[in-house]
């Protein structure tokens, strides 16, 4: 099961002098139970792609298949898509508007086919998984929370629908290091439960820690795609797309060019530590 785009073309300002193709035939796949990172410099088309995937923008040509169904088909039920696919945009905290935390998290459930009890359980679950005590914050105003808390709250609002697919645009920008770490932990947990996750991010360290696969875009096209370590191994191509590799990969590379035999597959922090320990135990260099 997956979200698959097939040769998606999308233009902004179609048929105007400012017309610009931002997606030039993009075929990508977000698989169930995996975390896929979409990377690329500002303006490469990442955010447009996820909006097309979520059925929020209609492509000029190409198809978007969600679990084998073409979401652009006339007969396709977009409401069902909303219950299946959650999107967290940049600055989700700006989308908080309800009078209480519990109401805000429950807003997306209003039109879903669920009993009140199920809704309440979902709200509790979403608040808890995002690190809140539902009894403590449920009745508070969302506007009184800190920036990081608002972010977590907004994400809880999307999780409350228990989406099968979750798409996040720059979810960790503005979170402190422990907030980022907790968030990575959460993504891994959701993935384990089978959620198909796509994250758009510039944060290569986060991508190295949690993404199974990476898609790199440049100028409206996919230039690289594959397992995270395979993509990050090719540092030159990654840099060409204006994307960073993780710090661990960078250091491993620097050590290798100095003749120290750490593995070129070292992309995560913990792997870097083990590699250095392994090499030093083998006798210095």
């Amino acid at each position, binding site marked *: 099961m997956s979200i698959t785009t097939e040769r998606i073309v999308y233009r902004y300002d179609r048929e105007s002098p400012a017309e610009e193709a931002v997606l030039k035939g993009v075929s990508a796949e977000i698989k169930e139970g995996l975390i896929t990172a979409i990377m690329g410099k*500002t*303006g490469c088309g990442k955010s447009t792609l996820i909006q097309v995937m979520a059925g929020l923008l209609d492509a000029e040509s190409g198809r978007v298949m969600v679990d084998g169904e073409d979401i652009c088909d006339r007969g396709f039920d977009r409401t069902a898509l909303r219950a299946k696919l959650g999107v967290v945009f940049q600055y989700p905290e700006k989308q908080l508007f309800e009078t209480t935390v519990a109401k805000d998290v429950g807003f997306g459930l209003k039109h879903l086919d669920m009993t009140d009890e199920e809704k309440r359980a979902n709200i509790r679950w979403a608040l808890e998984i995002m690190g809140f005590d539902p009894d403590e914050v449920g009745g508070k105003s969302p506007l009184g929370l*800190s920036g*990081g808390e608002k972010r977590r709250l907004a994400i809880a609002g999307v999780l409350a629908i228990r989406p099968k697919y979750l798409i996040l645009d720059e979810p960790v*920008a*503005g979170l402190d*290091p422990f907030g980022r770490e907790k968030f990575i932990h959460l993504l891994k947990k959701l993935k384990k439960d089978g959620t198909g996750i796509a994250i758009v991010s510039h944060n290569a360290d986060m991508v190295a820690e949690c993404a199974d696969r990476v898609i790199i875009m440049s100028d409206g096209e996919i230039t690289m795609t594959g397992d995270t370590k395979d993509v990050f191994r090719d540092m030159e191509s990654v840099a060409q797309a204006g994307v960073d590799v993780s710090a661990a990969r960078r250091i491993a590379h620097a050590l290798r060019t100095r003749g120290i035999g750490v593995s070129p597959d070292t992309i995560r922090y913990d792997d870097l*530590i083990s590699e250095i320990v392994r090499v030093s135990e083998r006798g210095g260099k």
Partner: protein
Amino acid sequence: MSGVSLDVKKGELVALLGRNGSGKSTLIRHFNALLSLQEGELIVGGIDASGKKNIWDLRRLSGMVFQNPDNQFVAPVVFDDVAFGLENYLVPREEIPTRVEKALDAVGMKGFENRAPHTLSGGQKQRVALAGVLAVEPDIVIFDEATSMLDPRGRSEVLSIIRQLHESGKTIIMITHYIEECVSADRVILMDSGKVVCSGAPENVLTDRERLKSAGMMPPMPVRVYYDLLERGVQLDRCPLTEEELTELLCR
């Protein structure tokens, strides 16, 4: 805020560090009277920041660049956007073009005067936002996570301009969650729960693993590597702050 005392010297580059909700943004919003002082004393460049009487002097003295570049545009083209602040400060009309040009030059955005902000990259947008601040010629420039939404190139563009501003004598206060960006600051101030936890040179504050941890922060990656290797029986000669230093030490 619960009793914050600190002193930033003229020309200093200070990095303000702390977890979400620690009070960093609230603190700096007092410096140019975006938030008014409830209790205590605050003097910015010799100007009393309590009460409302000096608001405009304070705002002229310190400018701020925020996290989201898209929220900081008010005009349809770059030139007008940079000029906007000047009009508010009653800068004589004939002086405005020179001030705008100078500001755009300082951020490397000369030639973009007629561009619409939405056609710019993230880094370019932040540089234009900064030019709008610089046109007012503030002594103090405050960055509130100004790099956190940017791609790698955008980040390094903004960081290199921050360094240039510092060299030109401006006082810089920057909030960042990328602790690596604090390494080149003159001083790092660590905040938690609305208080200053400690303040000192990067090599002291950023290597103090326990204190950072108790304030909800993580040391820079090279520092973490140093301690984690130590625990696994690999001793480096000293604790590195940058990736380059780390590589150097590992190669010994």
